[in-house]
């Protein structure tokens, strides 16, 4: 029996995280829920704890990559074989969790994609080119048809969880782009399924042309670095950090 852990990275999301957690609990009542409080200065941690979920509290902000790596480590140490990332801002619809996780029987990584037909999410200009470029390159590398490589709404099966607990990229865009490069090099199967995104319940996406241009450049940078850093498969077998050990005796 596969055990599912829903990981919710959260940075100052006190306003939206409560309903998100309640929705997740309603859709997958048997799954473990882990909020990774990424150094929030607001009440995120307290709101999450009030929902009776597990909370990892990072002492300072590490970014999504660092938060997710901690989440994957938590999964490995506590005997969870599947992980799905759901953002705390309410953008990812928890109702689609079972659909993504269901596909893990066929693939190691299932990405919920925004441009694959469903939903209304649209990006323009440089940001759109960047997404196209990333999608084109990662499609080539993973041999899976990908259109939205930067979606954070993704499920990971046992092999991916094991890999990411050790090597989850922590640089900007690394958590989405570089992680797929690593997965492809490690021979994992990647697939994407169309999802609809909900309107964010708080905050709004940053969309000035200048920021979009910077985003494009950083995307290219992230791809180049990922490819250079992980040239050989051999690297994937070497632990760069402390070994991740399972504490089965503690998970009673």
């Amino acid at each position, binding site marked *: 029996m596969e055990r599912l852990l829903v990981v919710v990275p959260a940075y100052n999301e006190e306003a939206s995280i409560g309903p998100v957690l309640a929705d997740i609990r309603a859709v997958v009542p048997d799954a473990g829920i882990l909020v*990774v409080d990424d150094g929030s200065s607001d009440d995120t941690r307290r709101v999450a704890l009030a929902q009776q979920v597990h909370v*990892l509290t990072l*002492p300072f902000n*590490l970014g999504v990559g660092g938060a997710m790596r901690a989440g994957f480590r938590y999964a490995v140490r506590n005997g969870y074989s599947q992980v799905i990332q759901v953002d705390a801002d309410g953008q990812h619809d928890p109702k689609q969790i079972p659909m993504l996780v269901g596909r893990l029987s066929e693939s190691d990584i299932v990405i919920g994609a925004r441009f694959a037909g469903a939903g209304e999410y649209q990006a323009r200009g440089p940001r759109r080119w960047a997404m196209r470029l990333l999608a084109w390159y990662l499609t080539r590398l993973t041999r899976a048809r990908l259109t939205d490589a930067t979606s954070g709404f993704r499920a990971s099966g046992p092999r991916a969880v094991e890999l990411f607990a050790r090597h989850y990229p922590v640089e900007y865009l690394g958590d989405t782009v570089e992680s797929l490069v690593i997965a492809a090099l490690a021979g994992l199967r990647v697939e994407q399924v169309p999802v609809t995104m909900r309107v964010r319940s708080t905050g709004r996406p940053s969309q000035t042309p200048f920021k979009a241009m910077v985003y494009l450049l950083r995307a290219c940078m992230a791809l180049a670095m990922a490819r250079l850093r992980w040239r050989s498969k051999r690297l994937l077998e070497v632990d760069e950090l402390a070994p991740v050990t399972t504490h089965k005796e*503690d998970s009673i």
Partner: protein
Amino acid sequence: MNGVHIIALVGGALILIGMFELLRRGQLREKYAVLWLLVGVAVAVFGLFPGLLNDIAQPLHIADPPNLLLFAGNVVLLLVTVHLSWESTRMEDRTRALAEEVALLRERLEQR
């Protein structure tokens, strides 16, 4: 011996004394101290033997010997900054790993 050489000599001596003092108080890791001690020694040597710069510059076909000094200084500083970037990257990686570890431990502790 003219004024410039005395300044170089005194400068070299001050660097050496300063490094020894920092090292003695445990304010500087050995690996960095060694680097700056070598720089101090180099400055002192050129202060003591002013002709040395010319002797090195001539076979290298450097017309103006002070240029060699400036060039060498720049190369050394470049290498030092690259090394420091490398060190700080490594430290940041370790800090991140520790932060994650602290979060995992805290969660387990608070569960009891």
